């Protein structure tokens, strides 16, 4: 009853969205007041129906209704209640429901708070929102229906991936989606304005609060995601330039640019086409991220739901939304008249400069994320772009931006006084120089210390520069204290928001610098009773409790006592857990923080001789990164509370209903002449569309390849059904055998390429145990790795392989056609490759493909 009602409500929502997409839009262009007025009730009904549907799905999860396929696949009666609730969006289907729920929530918010919007604009905004909702609800119903039923219901469910059984799941996806989807508001405003043909300063003011909300949510979402992976994945880092992480950073960069260009559009009625363009791009990047992560075109350690078939649909949505909006942009943008002029050195100039840098940064990350695909398509070989690329291109872009960020707020609109601004930054400059000097004095002369000192210098420059701007604004040192405080109270909140957010970024920057420069790491085997020193902390291993019982797991818990100068600092208890449903391992780290640095402990596998692998990190200033992000979000919220964003509706005059059309009719008459002119001189505005068409064509090609293999393969393996290439590799571990081609014969064998530097391999590792348990011979080839690192890695996580060989130069990998690690090949009894998995193995692939195939081949 509840479940079926949830499905029906979602279907009804699809049709309501269709009505909301069509009727108000036609109403707005033809001046039918009553048609336009359908927008608000439709948005409210849409929200109510999707909420009902989402609630029904949650109900099914909470009551463990195993007649619902989605519940079977992601739940188990032993799972704690919190994870029964958050597990709703732990799966692909559920997360798309959350996505749609938030989308309709924003539509509802426009309906409720949008009384300051002209009815024509509001009708068009809500219509575009409904088009997006229609696309996504259709996507859910056709490819990812969460209400698919099963009869008879099984006795119990399969449980949720232990990595997702974490409080982080409760907060991270909702905020991330609030951000991603929030930028759909800016997108809808942009499209509405393009249809309308009117983009003016007033429009920019109307769109700004929505952009701010989305920006705050996305900032928080990205920071939470980073924090979550920091404390669960157990590798001591917080950012790996993984495709999923990049997918969230790109819209953040574009969205940050949008936030700033909208200020220029509002204040000076200029940069309008650029603002519209950014609004389109920001939302498109959100969609692109969804596509890349869920289609299996790129693999990532953080993606939990991959399916190339769905990729086709998402690509279709992306093409429709982005393609159509860029087409509209090419048509209409040339007609947008630029407003006020400004000198290069001015507030506008500074904001434009920051915009350009942010956009280039977003483009570079996009390029880096897609580069391996391009290179492979051109037949130039298979490469993988890692942190080195991103670090080398990202830092030079961000450094000048931060330099300008401190100066910009001192410049006045139209024409700024650079000398004057720099004069007022003298003191700040001094502080930055002192910071650099002190850093070098403490850390000594080395390239690392030099980089660190520059990073801290920039952070100090931005932090104190922002403070200096505020104190100059209120006249802290020029006037009496009371007077200054009086002025401080009257500074608009949006200005406070800027100051706080900029200072937050300075704190983040300091945190990143510190953690990059002075991270200490120690990996060793310890026996209970042993002590070691880690960056000034004495850490004593007091013992292991092998009998810890959780609600749906058992664990071994180690206890470490950390002391500094003989004084007790912390008791740390990392665990190694074995979950029952699904049977998977997960290690939980212990972190002790004093808000300046984090002591981070990982408890690894036993060595079989009474010792255990332990891994400690001292991560300096990492807490500042997350704290700084929260400060930035706080700044955004302060700015949001500015009353300028809440300008009331004009006083209503009672007229006959028909006269409202006057508000919207003009464009209908004006449009044709605009289009004609646009097509003649607006070729430059066509470029984004052309670029997008090329990109979309490329993705179609890619997806085709992805769906040809039986797994989401990046590259169709030419090796399938061919004998495994000849190789003879030395052993990684001295006391174990090496590996050569002949060894593969006689028994079905899974050859797994892995490396210690590969983050997805870490996610794959527990799954390998399932392979070994199923009786398939499992051998590992350590790909382009330092043997010492690989040994430490195996010691920490355990060694499931029957033989591990070292392919230090990657020649064997190339012969196998390895694109990137992890990658694994199932070889039959005669040494012929029968199956290839690109990217990490998942329990589903092992269960549904690998084991049945291996059994077949074994016969």
């Amino acid at each position, binding site marked *: 009853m509840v479940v079926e009602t949830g499905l*029906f409500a979602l279907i009804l929502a699809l049709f309501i969205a269709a009505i909301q997409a069509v009727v108000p839009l036609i109403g707005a262009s033809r*001046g039918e007041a009553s048609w336009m*007025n359908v927008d608000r009730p439709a948005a409210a009904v849409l929200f109510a129906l999707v909420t009902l549907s989402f609630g029904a799905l949650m109900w099914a999860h909470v009551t463990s209704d195993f007649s619902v396929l989605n519940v079977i696949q992601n739940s188990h009666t032993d799972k704690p209640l919190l994870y029964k609730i958050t597990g709703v969006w732990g799966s692909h289907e559920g997360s798309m429901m959350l996505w749609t729920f938030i989308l309709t929530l924003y539509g509802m918010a426009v309906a409720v708070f949008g009384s300051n919007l002209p009815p024509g604009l509001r009708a068009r905004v809500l219509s575009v929102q409904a088009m997006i909702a229609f696309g996504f609800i259709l996507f859910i119903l056709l490819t990812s229906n969460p209400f698919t039923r099963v009869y008879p219901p099984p006795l119990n469910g399969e449980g949720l991936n232990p990595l997702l059984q974490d409080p982080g799941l409760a907060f991270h996806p909702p905020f991330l989606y609030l951000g991603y989807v929030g930028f759909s508001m800016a997108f809808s405003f942009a499209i509405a304005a393009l249809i309308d043909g009117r983009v003016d300063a007033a429009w920019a003011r109307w769109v700004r609060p929505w952009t701010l909300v989305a920006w705050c949510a996305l900032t928080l979402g990205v920071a939470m995601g980073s924090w979550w992976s920091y404390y669960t994945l157990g590798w001591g880092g917080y950012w790996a330039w993984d495709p999923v992480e990049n997918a969230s950073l790109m819209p953040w960069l574009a969205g940050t640019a949008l936030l700033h260009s909208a200020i220029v559009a509002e204040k000076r009625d200029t940069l309008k086409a650029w603002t519209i363009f950014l609004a389109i791009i920001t939302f498109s990047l959100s969609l692109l991220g969804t596509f890349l992560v869920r289609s299996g075109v790129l693999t990532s350690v953080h993606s939990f739901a991959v399916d190339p078939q769905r990729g086709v649909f998402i690509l279709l949505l992306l093409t429709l939304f982005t393609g159509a909006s860029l087409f509209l942009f090419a048509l209409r943008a040339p007609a947008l008249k630029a407003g006020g002029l400004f000198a290069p050195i001015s507030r506008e100039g500074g904001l434009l400069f920051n915009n350009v840098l942010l956009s280039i940064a977003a483009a570079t990350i996009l390029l880096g994320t897609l580069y391996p695909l391009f290179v492979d398509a051109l037949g130039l070989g298979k490469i993988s772009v890692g942190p080195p690329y991103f670090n080398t291109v990202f830092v030079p872009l961000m450094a000048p931006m931060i330099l300008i960020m401190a100066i910009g707020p001192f410049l006045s*609109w139209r024409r700024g006084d650079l000398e004057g601004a720099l004069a007022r930054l003298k003191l700040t400059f001094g502080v930055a120089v002192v910071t650099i000097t002190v850093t070098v004095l403490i850390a000594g002369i080395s390239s690392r210390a030099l980089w660190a000192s520059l990073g801290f210098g920039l952070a100090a420059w931005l932090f104190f520069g922002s403070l200096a701007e505020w104190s100059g604004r209120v006249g802290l040192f020029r006037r009496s204290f009371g007077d200054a405080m009086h002025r401080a109270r009257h500074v608009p909140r949006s200005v406070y928001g800027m100051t706080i957010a900029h200072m937050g970024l300075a704190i983040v920057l300091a945190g990143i610098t510190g953690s990059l420069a002075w991270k200490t790491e120690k990996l060793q085997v310890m026996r209970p009773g042993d002590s070691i020193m880690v960056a000034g902390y004495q850490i004593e291993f007091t013992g292991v409790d092998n009998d810890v019982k959780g609600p749906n797991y058992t664990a071994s818990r180690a206890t470490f006592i950390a002391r500094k100068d003989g004084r007790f600092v912390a008791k740390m208890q990392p665990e190694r857990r074995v979950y029952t449903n699904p049977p998977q391992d997960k290690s939980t780290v212990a972190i002790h923080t004093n808000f300046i640095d984090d002591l981070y402990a990982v408890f690894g596998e036993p060595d079989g001789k009474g010792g255990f692998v332990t891994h400690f990190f001292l991560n300096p200033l990492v807490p500042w990164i997350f704290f700084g992000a929260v400060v930035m979000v706080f700044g955004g919220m302060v700015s949001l509370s500015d009353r300028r964003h809440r300008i009331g509706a004009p006083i209503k005059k009672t007229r006959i209903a028909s006269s409202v059309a006057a508000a919207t009719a003009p464009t209908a008459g004006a449009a044709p002449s605009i289009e004609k002119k646009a097509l003649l001189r607006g070729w430059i505005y066509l470029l984004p569309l052309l670029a997008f068409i090329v990109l979309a064509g490329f993705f179609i090609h890619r997806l085709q390849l992805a769906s040809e293999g039986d797994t989401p393969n990046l590259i169709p393996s030419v090796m399938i059904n061919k004998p495994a290439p000849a190789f003879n590799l030395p052993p990684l571990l001295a006391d174990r055998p090496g590996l050569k081609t002949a060894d593969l014969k006689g028994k079905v064998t899974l050859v797994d390429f892995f490396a210690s530097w590969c983050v997805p391999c870490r996610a794959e590792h527990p799954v390998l145990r399932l392979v070994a348990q199923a009786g398939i011979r499992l051998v590992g080839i350590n790909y382009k790795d330092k043997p010492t690192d690989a040994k430490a890695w195996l010691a920490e996580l355990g060694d499931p392989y029957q033989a591990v060989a070292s392919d230090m130069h990657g020649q064997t990998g190339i012969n196998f056609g390895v694109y990137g690690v992890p990658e694994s090949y199932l070889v039959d009894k005669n040494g012929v490759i029968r199956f290839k998995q690109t990217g990490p193995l998942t329990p589903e692939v092992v269960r549904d493909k690998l084991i049945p195939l291996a059994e077949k081949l074994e016969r």
Partner: protein
Amino acid sequence: MYLVVFAALTILSVSALLYPLLRRGPSATVTRADYDNAVYRSQLAEVVQEAERGLMNQEQADAARTEIHRRMLSTAAVEKKGATGTRGSRRASLAAAIAIALSVPTGAGLLYAAIGSPGMPDQPYAERLKRDPNVMIASAARKLAAQLANKPNATGYLRLAEIYFYLHDYGRSATAYQQAIDLGDKSAGTWSQLGETIVMANDGAVVPDAINAFAHALQVDAREPRARYYFGLAAAQAHEWRRAVAIWRDLEKDSAANAPWLPILRQHIAAYAKAGGFDPASITPEPPLLPNP
């Protein structure tokens, strides 16, 4: 009941959409310019405030004011130029209302009929725990398993293994039998039940792990019937039909006349002898050959 709820949802949703279309009388409206000017007036007020507080010099304030005034003028100009025909026709509203009232219920009904499971009740776990004996047993098994994890003992694991076997959960059943054996129950019966469970887990194939378990059973008690039966089956699956029949005939010879397995055993002997094209009576009964331990 379903139809009532669905109909109510549909009627509520559609009528909310129809309300603005069917509403009569004048509505309070303003022009786009009014909205634009509301923003520009507030911008003007901000300029005045900032100039008063000295955050902006007079020259800047004047320039900003001029610019905002220019925007207000251009808004008015657009408004004037585009003041074309206005509409709010009753006919258009009615047409939209009818289209919505017809299309939404029809579309939703058809799509639900295509992808929904009409009439399928919810199956919350708590309810099933009261009704479905298998769910009750499975739940009891989970509790027993949790108890045994704290206080392991062979009898308990044996019972647990039998429950899992009953529930067709052969993987868990085999693990539980193995645990009972590890905890000291090394009887022939337990070994052979472990073997049978492994066979079931492998869809009836007598795999090496199972043969190993049966061999253990026969080492304890060379007459254990279940193990002997499966050794025969293993031979049959290896297409050694004469050996299979020999082992089964040996078992048949030792079985009491009322042994429950006799009918099926005789069926097997007859079927495999026919497949091999030999007379079962011509085969000398033989005990199974144990693999080397």
